[in-house]
């Protein structure tokens, strides 16, 4: 039994992928000279014949992954999120999204919590880009435990996936296990005053904010929206109907990510006051992950303030 809880999400990914490889001989893995960082190295070690080192050539890697998928393979492709999104976008569009190929792009080092490497390595546009692609499912797991379930689900579900993982160790939320369902938000905590919808590393911060607010008598619902596409519209509409105010939090640009998706659903179905936390139209800099989150207003304290703000704008019936 592997104890995923003690791992980073990417470590958990590398381990579960190797386990899945034992069960399913059709799983193949491709990497672009980052297998020691994305943790596909475990699969490479166990199944050298089914691992394809592509060198630092992401565009070629995506085409190869698609060709393998066209012949019945399930291609897992890994690199850093910034390259998975930017370096080979047209190849993903043409060879994976359009034909609906069975290619699972599992990108690590997403968001600004990459930290010290700086803006060149901080993917803050990847979710907007991948959510724009027809046929894609886009998922950001909240911790290592959910990562394992997401990877299992992707291996069993045909079609293109983009799964974003982080670099650093993040708090474990699913200490008692996780039942991930593609396209379903997970209600981690219920409350009637407001809903915090978060994704990825921001989920733990949302829970922290909710328990702090509870001390002041403010009860929040917390949704882990790990699947950004297809978005769980029902959960968003229900949150608006039940709590009347929504805060979103993501480690991504405000344009085109979770905040945009939630706002689009609410405007069409159930307009309520919304506050969106994310990166505001700028590139970030080098620094420690927590310092960067603080610089960009992505702490649990920022979520608390945002909840208090939407509450003041809430229309009381």
């Amino acid at each position, binding site marked *: 039994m592997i104890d995923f809880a003690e791992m980073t999400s990417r470590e958990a990914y590398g381990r579960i992928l190797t386990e899945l490889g034992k069960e399913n001989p059709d799983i*193949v893995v491709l990497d672009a000279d980052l297998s020691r960082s994305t943790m596909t190295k475990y699969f490479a070690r166990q199944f050298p*014949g*089914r691992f*394809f080192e*592509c*060198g630092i*050539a992401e*565009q*070629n*890697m*995506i*085409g*190869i*992954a*698609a*060709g*393998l*998928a*066209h*012949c*019945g*393979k399930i*291609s897992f492709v890994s690199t850093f999120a910034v390259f998975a999104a930017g370096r080979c976008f*047209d*190849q993903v*569009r*043409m*060879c994976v999204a*359009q*034909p*609906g190929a069975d290619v699972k792009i599992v990108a690590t080092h997403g968001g600004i919590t990459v930290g010290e490497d700086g803006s060149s390595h901080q993917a803050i546009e990847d979710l907007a880009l991948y959510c724009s692609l027809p046929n894609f499912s886009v998922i950001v797991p909240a911790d290592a435990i959910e990562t394992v379930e997401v990877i299992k689900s992707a291996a069993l579900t045909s079609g293109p996936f983009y799964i974003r993982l982080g670099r650093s160790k993040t708090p474990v939320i699913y200490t008692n296990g996780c039942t991930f369902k593609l396209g379903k938000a997970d209600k981690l905590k219920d409350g009637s005053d407001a809903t915090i919808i978060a994704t990825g590393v921001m989920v733990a911060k949302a829970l922290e904010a909710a328990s702090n607010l509870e001390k002041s008598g403010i009860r929040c619902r917390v949704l882990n929206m790990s699947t950004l596409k297809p978005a769980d519209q029902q959960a968003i509409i229900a949150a608006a109907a039940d709590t009347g105010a929504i805060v979103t939090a993501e480690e991504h640009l405000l344009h085109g990510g979770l905040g945009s998706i939630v706002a689009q659903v609410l405007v069409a179905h159930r307009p309520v006051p919304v506050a969106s936390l994310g990166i505001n139209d700028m590139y970030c800099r080098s620094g420690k992950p927590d310092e960067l989150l603080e610089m960009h207003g992505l702490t649990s304290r920022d979520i608390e303030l945002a909840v208090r703000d939407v509450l003041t704008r809430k229309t009381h019936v």
Partner: protein
Amino acid sequence: MANYSISDLEIIARKLRRHVITMISTAGSGHPGGSLSAADIITVLYFKMMKHDPRDPKWPDRDRFVLSKGHAAPILYATLAECGYFPLEWLTTLRKAGTCLQGHTDSNLTPGVDASTGSLGQGLSVGIGMALAARLDEKDYHTYVLLGDGECDEGQVWEAAMFAPNYKLDNLTAIVDFNKIQLDGFTRDIMNLEPFIDKWRAFNWEVLEIDGHDIKQTIDAIGKARSIRGKPAVIIAHTIKGKGVSFMENNVDFHGKAPNKSETEIALKELS
């Protein structure tokens, strides 16, 4: 496939060229030049060298073909229709709303099309994936990728060119339709590819050089490419853009322009 003679194949290629002219003329847009330059190569592949079954387009053991220069879709559609993948009547629906024959190849819609293409420089990578899958599954099908010379400006072509010999992919053959013209002009003026053959050799490919309008040379080269072991082969096929229609030959204007009514009549007459 039937055992066609060289003169049979020449007749088939001429018929396919007529289809291309009629299709593009009816559509009112498209790329005649690159379809006509590739006509003989594609004829040899589909009517002589490739293992495929039009009644079973998804046959797992079929040879794979990737038209990396996706704008030459009309010549592939004409070929697939003549092989029997779909009715000949489909050909004049090219590029029209609701058609299965898109402006550039779409594997979702057209029986017999193995990969969606149209954004240049990507087909060789896809072909590599197919060749790797054959190796994993211990199947003996061969993968062919037809590239344009202009698309070799794309960096991805050379990423793929580095990968295939590194993995000793001898079940993969690239063919370059070297017609010397791209949209903006002659390749030597737009982006000089030379020394083109030396480039492929330097990337560790077995290089074969032929006249891409000589059916016998094309058959022999594809046969030889298949027999090479331990590395992939590339066939540099010297061709003429617009081959077979006097006013289209070597004429950059017909890279991406449909012939008008009178041009269509002349072209069909020349190809009769």
